[in-house]
């Protein structure tokens, strides 16, 4: 079952004054990429997708970072840096995108669930309630197809990563790692704390939109542990 759409969308108001006053930092990464560090990274990505810049092959987001892969045979880092700085200067800091709201059914029975609850001094029931109450948001997609980095965990729910990653994390595992929550779309190695699992199919090339979520979507985990 894909994550259900619960309708409402609302403005992303986080990018307020900060975006307009912080000067952008644009640095080379190898000879065919530039890294833009800015609170407006996500808005810049939307802008580049709507109005492509010459020579830009791809723009890849991370948290407040946009990596711009370019063709050095078509443009130069100097020209591209100037163009990107100009684009950033024209952004309002308002249009972070209207996210959808996704409710993800989760069975909380992961191998690390009791450890996580114990670490913060909660019962498992209280811990699950707190995780489901967290206002999560898709910060960016990456790592593997369908994987989303979810922000919004309250401070007390941030879990240290495993010292030694598991070699195999089952597909559908719901996990917490550092500031992030995430769901492993398919079996991979992984170092986050597994608290549950979902049957939601997060990546399916046969769907019109293969990846189930987009950056900016709001996500809540819905406890379906008892059926």
């Amino acid at each position, binding site marked *: 079952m894909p994550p259900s759409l619960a309708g409402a969308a609302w403005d992303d108001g986080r990018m307020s004054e900060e975006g307009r006053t912080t000067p952008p930092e644009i640095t080379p990464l190898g000879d065919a990429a530039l890294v833009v560090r800015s609170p407006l990274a996500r808005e810049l990505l939307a802008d580049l997708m709507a109005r492509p810049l010459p020579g830009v092959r791809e723009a890849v987001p991370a948290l407040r970072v946009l990596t711009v892969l370019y063709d050095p045979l078509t443009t130069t880092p100097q020209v591209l840096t100037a163009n990107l700085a100009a684009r950033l200067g024209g952004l309002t800091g308002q249009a972070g995108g209207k996210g959808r709201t996704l409710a993800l059914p989760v069975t909380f029975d992961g191998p690390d669930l009791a450890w996580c609850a114990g670490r913060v001094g909660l019962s498992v029931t209280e811990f699950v309630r707190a995780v489901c109450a967290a206002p999560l948001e898709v910060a960016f997609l990456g790592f*593997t197809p369908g994987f989303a980095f979810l922000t919004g965990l309250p401070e007390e729910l941030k879990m240290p990563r495993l010292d030694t990653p598991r070699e195999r994390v089952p597909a559908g595992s719901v996990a917490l790692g550092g500031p992030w929550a995430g769901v492993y779309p398919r079996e991979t190695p992984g170092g986050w704390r597994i608290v549950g699992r979902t049957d939601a199919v997060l990546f399916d090339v046969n769907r019109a939109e293969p990846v189930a979520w987009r950056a900016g979507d709001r996500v809540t985990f819905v406890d379906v542990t008892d059926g």
Partner: protein
Amino acid sequence: MVEPPSLTVERPGLLTTVQDAGRRARALGVPEGGAADPVARRLANALVENAAGAAGLEVTLGGPALRFHADALVSLCGAPFEARLDDGPFPLWRAVVVRAGQTLSIFGTPRGARAFLAVRGGLHGQEVFGSRSTDLRSRFGGLEGRALKAGDRLSWSVLPPVTPPHAFVGPDLHTPTGPDLTLRVLATPEATPDLLAALCGPTFTVSGQADRMGVRLGEVVPAPHDPTRVSLPNPPGAVQLPPDGRPILLLSDAGTHGGYTTPLVVARVDLPTLGQLRPGDRVRLRAVTLEAAHAALRRRERALRGVEAALSWWYKGA
């Protein structure tokens, strides 16, 4: 309905996959994919008058045996694989006519790892995010998202018959192959002077962990351990340094984002060479400036476009 021309895989080889120029969907977490030696892919396609990004077969270390059911014009470019057409020789780096009923057998290569077999018309395969490249880990693209196996059938599009040129691609455009190779690299802001000295100087050995995702080097360098480093997008050719200190050079199927320190990035001009590394090769990393990297890329591109234009001119006039 007329069946498209096709071939049958009699022997799959070690790892033979459908590849093309790859996809641009990293922002969705989807790896680039595509032929690991893009220069071999471009030249093989140009030799049979395909578009530069047409899909063909990437063969790895040990090649396949392919029985053709229709006439075809093919070319094999890349590492110096031994190959035979039925009982006769099969030359690399040129367009070769294969007749219906003939079997093309590709064997091993004494140096390098990969070659690209182009078939005039371009191979068919599952297209995902604008590319037919096989993504082995997520199992999509190409032929059911997997490597070839015996009994598979591959088809291609019919193009008007042509007279192939007798020309061959000269060795100056062949991607370098081992056992001793140098990769030009660029330092990133994560490269401390100590790290640069440890990485750019010694000779490394390619370990047995070498696939389409990445190549691990055998030796250990002192690695900074920063558990707070956040995941960032990996550019093509990124050199990652995990806590165990054994560098990983990322190839086309690598994950789109990574949390390990990335002190170097292989220059774009040397990505094809990176795609030819095989276990046991010795490799040195040589730091170059952005300007030097771009100048080298432009020089190679001029030569490549010269060959592509000459072949295109031949086909238009023939």
